[in-house]
């Protein structure tokens, strides 16, 4: 029942948006709608962890520990972004929703985007999961270019075409998996249901599964932003309005990672050895980290910098997924940390950018004194993001290193740490420059500041620092149980 509600709320939200006359009301409604969805997701998540996985609609909809974790994360970040959007859009001249019609369009797309991501997570059928993933692209493309200027248009087109081409390879991969499933004796819709796939993965034709998995990794990897398929990511992240960038980086990439997670146990079971799939993931993860590290060094635009940092962190998560069960826990933990931290970073970068009227990092300096909350938040977020302790990301990176050493992947860990170190040095320099130093004279005052949003910034920072030093037992259990699903247990 709750699964139906989860699917229905965004649809209803989108429809309601189209009916609301005033733009302020739309901006308010997206907060309410996503709050409802968040509450539902959390209730469903708690239910899953208490009682066990749930399903509906003949097993097409399902929620287990892995998807419940992602679902809560998606809706939570969405809610934060909705709150943030209200303040952000009220700052002229950055308001893409300046008239009511635009606002309605924004609201409807915002909810469709949420809906499609929720769809990715609650469909048990990997085919429908693919369909939802494809529709995230379609729903969000217009969100990028809601400004409709040349740069955002260019970014949106690249996003649309690259992600579509990539995702369609994911479909082909799904077809191969289906073929393998049929070869193992399954038939009909069940042959694509994840639970069934896992249960008879052992009988599948390994060659088909291998081809399918490569296609899936490349396909969904495009959406994750794994190098060398990441090319759309910095463009889209930097050109989209900041709330959209935050959602992109904070959860959209996670959804794509989630899709790959679903196929990991199948590959492991059908090939008989977990090493083959892990090797591919390790390769992609490392390449992404290295590419991101190299590009972080030459960035001028703060949002672009954050985008490359996302590529790096997605690489880290992929490396974690390539390291086996201990790595799965670390990867999931890292997913949570990266989402919160990157969202925080985008929030702060967006506001600081509004205040200085530029996103060029060389023109921003002294932001800690110019706009204390956002400037300090940006500094804190970047420091946490590049792995300063006491931060959750430091801890999850440590867990990945440990998993790597336990698995004997010393070379991988060496590359991993080298890339992390380069990113650290490369991102720290602009972070220091932006945070400290003299403030240039014309720094605009920020409008639409809300105490709630400032509270969110403080809370997110505190959360990241806290979980860097102390993980609640419940949270550990969440990661471990979700990781067991990826491990196919």
């Amino acid at each position, binding site marked *: 029942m709750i699964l139906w509600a989860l699917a229905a709320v965004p649809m209803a939200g989108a429809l309601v948006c189209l009916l609301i006359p005033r733009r302020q009301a739309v901006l308010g409604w997206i907060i309410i709608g996503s709050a409802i969805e968040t509450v539902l997701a959390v209730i469903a998540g708690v239910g899953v962890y208490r009682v066990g996985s749930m399903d509906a609609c003949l097993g097409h909809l399902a929620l287990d520990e892995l998807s419940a974790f992602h679902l809560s994360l998606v809706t939570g970040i969405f809610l934060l972004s909705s709150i943030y959007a209200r303040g952000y859009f009220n700052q002229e001249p950055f308001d893409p929703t300046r008239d009511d019609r635009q606002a309605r369009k924004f609201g409807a797309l915002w909810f469709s985007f949420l809906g499609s991501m929720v769809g990715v997570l609650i469909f048990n059928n990997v085919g429908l999961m693919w369909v939802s993933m494809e529709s995230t692209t379609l729903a969000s493309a217009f969100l990028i270019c809601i400004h409709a200027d040349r740069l955002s248009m260019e970014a949106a*087109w690249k996003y649309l075409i690259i992600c579509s081409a990539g995702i369609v390879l994911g479909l082909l991969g799904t077809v191969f998996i289906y073929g393998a499933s049929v070869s193992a004796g399954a038939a009909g819709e069940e042959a694509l249901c994840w639970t069934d796939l896992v249960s008879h993965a052992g009988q599948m034709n390994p060659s088909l599964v*291998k081809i399918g998995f490569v296609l899936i990794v490349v396909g969904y990897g495009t959406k994750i932003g794994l190098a060398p398929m990441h090319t759309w990511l910095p463009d889209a992240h930097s050109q989209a309005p900041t709330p959209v960038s935050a959602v992109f980086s904070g959860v959209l990439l996670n959804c794509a990672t989630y899709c790959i997670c679903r196929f990991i146990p199948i590959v492991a079971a059908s090939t008989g050895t977990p090493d083959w799939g892990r090797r591919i993931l390790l390769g992609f993860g490392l390449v992404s980290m290295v590419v991101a590290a*190299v590009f972080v060094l030459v960035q001028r635009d703060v949002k672009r910098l954050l985008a490359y940092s996302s590529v790096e962190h997605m690489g880290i998560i992929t490396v974690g997924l390539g390291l086996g069960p201990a790595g799965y826990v670390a990867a999931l933990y890292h997913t949570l940390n990266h989402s919160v931290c990157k969202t925080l970073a985008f929030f702060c970068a967006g506001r600081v950018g509004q205040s200085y009227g530029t996103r060029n990092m060389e023109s921003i300096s002294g932001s800690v004194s110019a706009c204390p909350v956002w400037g300090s938040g940006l500094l804190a977020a970047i420091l946490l993001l590049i792995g*300063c302790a006491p931060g959750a990301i430091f801890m999850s990176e440590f867990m990945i290193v*440990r998993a*790597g050493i336990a698995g004997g992947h010393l070379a991988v860990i060496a590359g991993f*740490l080298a890339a992390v170190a380069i990113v650290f040095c490369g991102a720290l320099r602009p972070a220091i420059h932006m945070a400290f130093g003299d403030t240039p004279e014309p720094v605009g005052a920020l409008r639409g500041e809300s105490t709630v949003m400032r509270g969110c910034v403080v809370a997110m920072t505190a959360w990241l620092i806290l979980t860097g030093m*102390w993980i609640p037992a419940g949270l550990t259990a969440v990661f471990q149980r979700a990781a067991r699903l990826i491990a196919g247990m």
Partner: protein
Amino acid sequence: MTPFLICLGLWTLGGVVGLCGGKRILPVSASAAVAGSVLGLLTAAKVLATGDGVAFHAGWQMPYGEFHLALDPLSAVFLVPILVLCALAAVYGVGYLKDRDSRQIGGAVFFFHLLVVSMCVVVTAKNAILFLLVWEIMALVSFFLVMLDSRRVEVRRAGWIYLASAHIGTAFLLVLFAWMGYTAGNFDFDAWQNLSQIGTRTASVWFILALIGFGTKAGFWPFHVWLPEAHPAVPSHVSAVMSGVMIKTGIYGLIRVVALLGPPPAWWGMTLLCIGLISGILGVLFALAQHDIKRLLAYHSVENIGIIALGMGGGLLGMSYGMEEAALFGWAGALLHVINHALFKGLLFMGAGSVQHATGSRDIEKLGGLLKKMPVTGSTFLIGSAAISGLPPLNGFVSEFLIYVCYFKLALGGPLFTGAAAAFAIAGLALIGGLAAACFTKVFGVVFLGEPRTDVSSHASPFSLTTPMALLAASCILIGVFPSAAVRGLTVEALKAIGLGLSPADVGLLSLTSILTRLNLCIGILIALLIFITLIRAWIISRRRISQTVTWDCGYSAPTSRMQYTAGSFVQHFIDLFHLFLQPRERRQNPIGYFPKKASYESHSADLATRRIFEPLFEWIQDLAEKIQWIQQGRVQTYLLYIFVTLAAVLSFQAFR
């Protein structure tokens, strides 16, 4: 253990109070700090006296983590200088920070107190995760201390270099601890005792990881590059702490890990010996070439870390050749030098801070004649200078003496190669000592003696600045005059903890004690002579006619204070001599003609490692990054091609295998 926890609590409290309170609350924070330190010192003293550690466990939900603190003798040896110096620095800070604006004071006090707490936890943490966490916190809070004066570009650069190098160092520790923890199946240091059974190969890899990871913090050459940048950037009492004790946490970590690794192969000792020699000699050479007093002192930290590394190297060599006596001397020297360096380097940085506070300048070429205006600062600085140059009867000599004895014993009993290495160490130590003495003659002579070189105003330092310096100077003298008691009281229990396996009746320990007793006698006689001859001289002088006059001016009629020997000219011989390493950028305008109008000489030596290793490396990476940018030149068709080519490549290499 409770007093120690209260100590941590008091320090934290002082920091938080300082953050909220600002200027007027400074004495409160300092009092909390002093009270806390006294409590902590009592605990540490008990541990050092009895050799029995105390421990504290608390449940802590962190994967593989547990909040486990323990104070064993080795921790206590490091805790003592930390608490002593930090308490004094806190007192010093009261007077030093007073003139700054409230916000800066809040930050300075808060981060300083956090730094102290994190250092205390680092040396007592018994869980690898806890250790790593606090290790990083330590780096981060000191980064914020560096950034206090962030309006200046060079400070921001210093902050970047500092945090980046600290973090890269931590990366090695991350691997080290993850590996050791995985092998031991646990992240508790107590559970790592059985790691000494691991083979030499793995242990050697761990040793190298520890060497780089901890060496970056300690400031081993060439990982020292952050020291001369960061230390001048922070307020002086913080420089005192960073240079005096924070870098020692690196030494602590290295000793802790090495003690776990089982019998060391000879090349570990050799490596540390080489590092020690290089750090020591290059550190002091670059110190000689500096004109910024705090930068100079920072390079001296590299030198002293080199001396400590020499001691540790000697200790390891002694252990690997089964020469327990030599090992004992080496380790004792290293440990004592850790404490000594904290005392005199803290003293010197505080002195430099007082000078800066009084004159507003750190450029020694601009100063002069300050001893008359600032008698206490000057006199204590002199004591610090003599101590850091390793001169008897001060504390620096005692630790260097122990290290010398260690190497003499190695050279006497070791095989040819070790003997030759020990000879190098001895010659190196002698050279380092000579160069350090030269350097501090320069600093003290140019800053405090003669006449002021420029028109800088100065005034005597307030009480809160001079008291800590006087106390530190007194402790330098105390350890120097009573070396036997100092070594026995401070290091013996810790030496047992390193894994030398000593009983009190051991031959090595007996020889150490007897030598130190005799040394004590000699130094006593030296002191007695000093007092006696001073009295005699005073008696004679009091009966003679004394006149005041000008300095012998060689017949010039109007000498000015600008004609005094400058620091630059004082070290010019050294710079010419060690041109190869210093590679100074010299600006020389030689006098021309019979009546030259103008002549000048200036030299600056940028850091060798920075200039020859790290800058080219970073430039190369940056260039590479800029060249690689072409792969993302903006054409969407190319991007699509990447995807398809990747797919084809992965399919053909992986899927059909």
